[in-house]
């Protein structure tokens, strides 16, 4: 029995160390700068590639290996400094979510840069003999290098502890983690502190990437797979807590190692279930502290007023133009416009949650996907016609949202966002892996509208009518007492409770409504594409929704609509015009974030209101 458990346990510990290396950098950066750094995985990927380039040029002895690894960490730290100086420094004052958006732009850019620099083929580091060594443990061969990894985790934790507790710099970092404003008040150069913290975090990411080389290749998929793992660890451990990240790494590493033996099919879901369970019992992670209220977000919320007549006429004109599109655009642009209509509904539904609801969802694609699968499965099992499918989709998504809502409305801030991300990943894993029901990645096919609705123009009108109708209904709702109460709960939860509002209930209903609307958009999309696929629920699709809402503007009702249309058009043009569309899109995102921190519609609104708001 022991010979079964011990090697698996050690393997889990080695995995835990790798997780910790990457997660520690992320948690330190978050603790001080409050930035949810999506590009942390990209830094790990760069670490792996840089490590490959450096180590293949060095002699293959262990001392050179160590030197090469440290050199890689240093290089990645420098890249981190550059990132901080060029990009992040310009967005610290923007609302938190914009910083996330900026780092996502960096992810896109680095994907193309890495491809351009190192080529498309995965690059494994040739292992010298000493890296292939093993020791015999209870009759099992165990890799020597994995033993080294097991030791590296605690050593790095120890060094970081010394750094944080025995140096002035570390004291400042800890103080900043607790209260940023206090450190600023102490007269510390905050810019230098942020830059150095980012350098440390990036260096740790690079270290993690380089240290993965003896076991894995440098490849272009590292960024997204690492960032998801790192998010889970950091959230489970408690944002900003190094010790928490360590404990969470151990928990997840070991669970994963034994999960593989006991439930081989469930590994992906298992990790996210752990995260969900931990957050239910400890809403701030295992060792995290309650977060200070996100003050930036509150300060950024301006008064919502009814649209001025000019804007109403503009909206009406746009709608008329859109409705008449089939008479003057070609079939292809009609499908793009259909996608635009779907995106509009998708973005508007997220806006309800994020804007007035104050719940930033990183996994909004889950509802889109649940609606799509509801329509698809009904059609497959019962041959349900499209109108029923379009009805069932929002109902199904709404019901699941009500169940999930119980978990989510208890949380706040980044934890809430991360739980939505975890939930979306669970839904995605089910759709991707449960081939028997969902068809797996092949998806559910043959989901076409009935003959009467099949024409490109007819379907476009259906999509446009439903999207615009639901968007108007949601708008109506937001100006009604419920919408005010929801906004009140976001603006000040204590005040809302003190005047007798049930904050959790209000948010729950917002989640259900947003989920249902997103579910409808998912079904509309599926009938347009002729099928349902797990890619509907992917992280990039959730991020697309965020992009649309934030680029358009979170604080105006027109924002998500503008964002959805701009993004759909931009993405379509870019994808068709260049292979480097990720680079261009990333750059555009960065520019927009820097130029319009309140979104496109928000900026337009500010120009419009200039001098009018007292």
């Amino acid at each position, binding site marked *: 029995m022991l010979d079964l458990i011990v090697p698996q346990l050690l393997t889990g510990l080695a995995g835990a160390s790798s997780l910790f290396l990457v997660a520690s950098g992320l948690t330190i950066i978050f603790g001080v700068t409050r930035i949810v750094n999506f590009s942390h995985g990209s830094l790990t990927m760069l670490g792996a590639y840089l490590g490959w380039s450096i180590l293949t040029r060095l002699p293959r002895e262990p001392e050179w290996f160590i030197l090469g690894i440290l050199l890689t960490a240093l290089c990645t730290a420098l890249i981190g400094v550059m990132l901080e100086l060029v990009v992040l420094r310009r967005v610290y004052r923007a609302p938190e979510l914009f910083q996330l958006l900026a780092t996502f732009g960096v992810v896109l850019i680095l994907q193309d840069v890495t491809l351009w620099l190192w080529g498309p083929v995965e690059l494994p580091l040739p292992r010298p003999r000493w890296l292939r060594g093993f020791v015999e443990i209870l009759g099992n061969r165990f890799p020597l290098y994995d033993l080294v990894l097991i030791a590296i985790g605690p050593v790095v934790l120890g060094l970081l502890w010394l750094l944080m507790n025995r140096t002035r710099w570390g004291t400042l970092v800890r103080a900043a983690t607790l209260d940023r404003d206090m450190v600023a008040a102490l007269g510390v150069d905050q810019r230098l502190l942020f830059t150095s913290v980012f350098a440390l975090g990036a260096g740790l990411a690079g270290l993690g990437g380089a240290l993965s080389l003896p076991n894995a290749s440098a490849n272009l998929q590292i960024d997204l797979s690492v960032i998801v793992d790192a998010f889970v660890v950091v959230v489970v451990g408690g944002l900003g807590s190094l010790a928490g990240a360590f404990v969470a790494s151990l928990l997840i590493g070991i669970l994963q190692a034994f999960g593989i033996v006991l439930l081989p099919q469930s590994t992906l879901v298992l990790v996210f279930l752990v995260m969900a369970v931990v957050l239910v019992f400890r809403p701030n992670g295992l060792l995290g502290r309650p977060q200070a209220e996100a003050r930036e977000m*509150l*300060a950024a*919320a*301006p*008064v*919502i*007023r*009814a649209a001025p007549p000019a804007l109403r006429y503009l909206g009406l004109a746009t709608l008329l133009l859109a409705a008449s599109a089939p008479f003057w655009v070609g079939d292809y642009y009609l499908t793009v416009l259909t996608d635009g209509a779907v995106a509009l509904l998708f973005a508007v539904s997220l806006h309800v949650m994020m804007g007035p609801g104050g719940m930033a969802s990183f996994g909004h694609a889950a509802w889109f996907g649940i609606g799509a699968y509801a329509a698809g499965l009904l059609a497959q099992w019962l041959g349900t016609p499209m109108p029923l499918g379009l009805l069932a989709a929002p109902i199904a998504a709404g019901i699941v949202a009500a169940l999930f809502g119980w978990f989510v409305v208890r949380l706040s801030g980044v934890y809430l966002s991360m739980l939505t991300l975890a939930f979306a990943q669970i839904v995605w894993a089910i759709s991707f892996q449960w081939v028997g029901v969902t068809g797996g990645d092949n998806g559910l096919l043959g989901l076409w509208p009935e003959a009467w609705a099949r024409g490109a123009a007819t379907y476009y009108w259906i999509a446009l009518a439903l999207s615009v109708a639901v968007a108007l209904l949601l708008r*109506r*709702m937001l*100006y*009604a*007492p*419920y*919408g*005010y*109460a929801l*906004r*009140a709960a*976001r*603006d*000040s939860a*204590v*005040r*809302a*409770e*003190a*005047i*007798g*509002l*049930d904050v959790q209930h*209000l948010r729950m209903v917002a989640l259900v409504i947003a989920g249902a609307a997103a579910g409808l958009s998912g079904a509309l999309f599926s009938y347009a594409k002729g099928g349902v696929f797990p890619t509907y629920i992917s992280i990039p699709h959730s991020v697309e929704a965020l992009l649309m809402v934030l680029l358009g503007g979170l*604080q105006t009702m027109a924002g998500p609509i503008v964002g959805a249309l701009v993004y759909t058009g931009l993405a379509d043009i870019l994808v068709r015009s260049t292979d480097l569309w990720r680079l261009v899109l990333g750059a555009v995102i960065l520019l927009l974030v820097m130029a319009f921190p309140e979104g496109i519609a928000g900026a337009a609104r500010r120009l419009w209101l200039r001098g009018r*708001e*007292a």
Partner: protein
Amino acid sequence: MSLLAVRGLRKAFGGVQAVDDVSFDLAAGEMLALIGPNGAGKSTCFNMVGGQLPPDAGSVRLEGREIAGLNPRAIAAHGIGRTFQITATFGSMTVRENVQMALIAHHGEVWRFWRPAAVRFAAEADALLAQVGLAEQAERATGVLAYGDLKRLELAVALGNAPRLLLMDEPTAGMAPAERVALMQLTRRLATERGVAVLFTEHDMDVVFDVSDRILVLNRGALIAEGDAAAIRADPAVREVYLGTGAAGGGH
């Protein structure tokens, strides 16, 4: 019969007894100040009455009904309004909408999804704003209000709930001295006119002595004195722990 009856209230954090066996009464239309040095347990006491914290032991009765341990929402429903030390208003709404929101909540009209909220209780809201002297500012964004106006807005919002008891935690913190007196005299007037009982904590002794009917003094979680302004001024125990650092002469 008193409106509010607090008996044997206790709360500990870790090993520290923050509030230790505190009892007091409060009658309708009465203004009761809760004072004490920092860390005396004022806010804890306050938050237990307001529902933000559950007490470890003791009872809080409003007109004879037990409200200890209820959540803030239920307590609001019992007719208790409050203001916060750091003003809590709805930043994305105009001044009038803030009050309308409270009125909508008070009238149980929150779960309505169709008719615009802007037309609900506008006249009532304006009347309340006029009472606190904010009528002119009704259309303005909350975010651009001066601090004193924000405090008065909070008062109007709290009144929107038609409370019988008003809890005010450091209502004048951060205000200029002249504004402080004005705000508390406004409160005094409203309390008298509407028969609302007011329980408030306050650092500014001038304000306390000026407007309160009665004063409770807390130290290290325990009630050490109770009485009107004159009695408290004269109380040696109070002077010792709180008032006259100089008068106590080399206490520690």
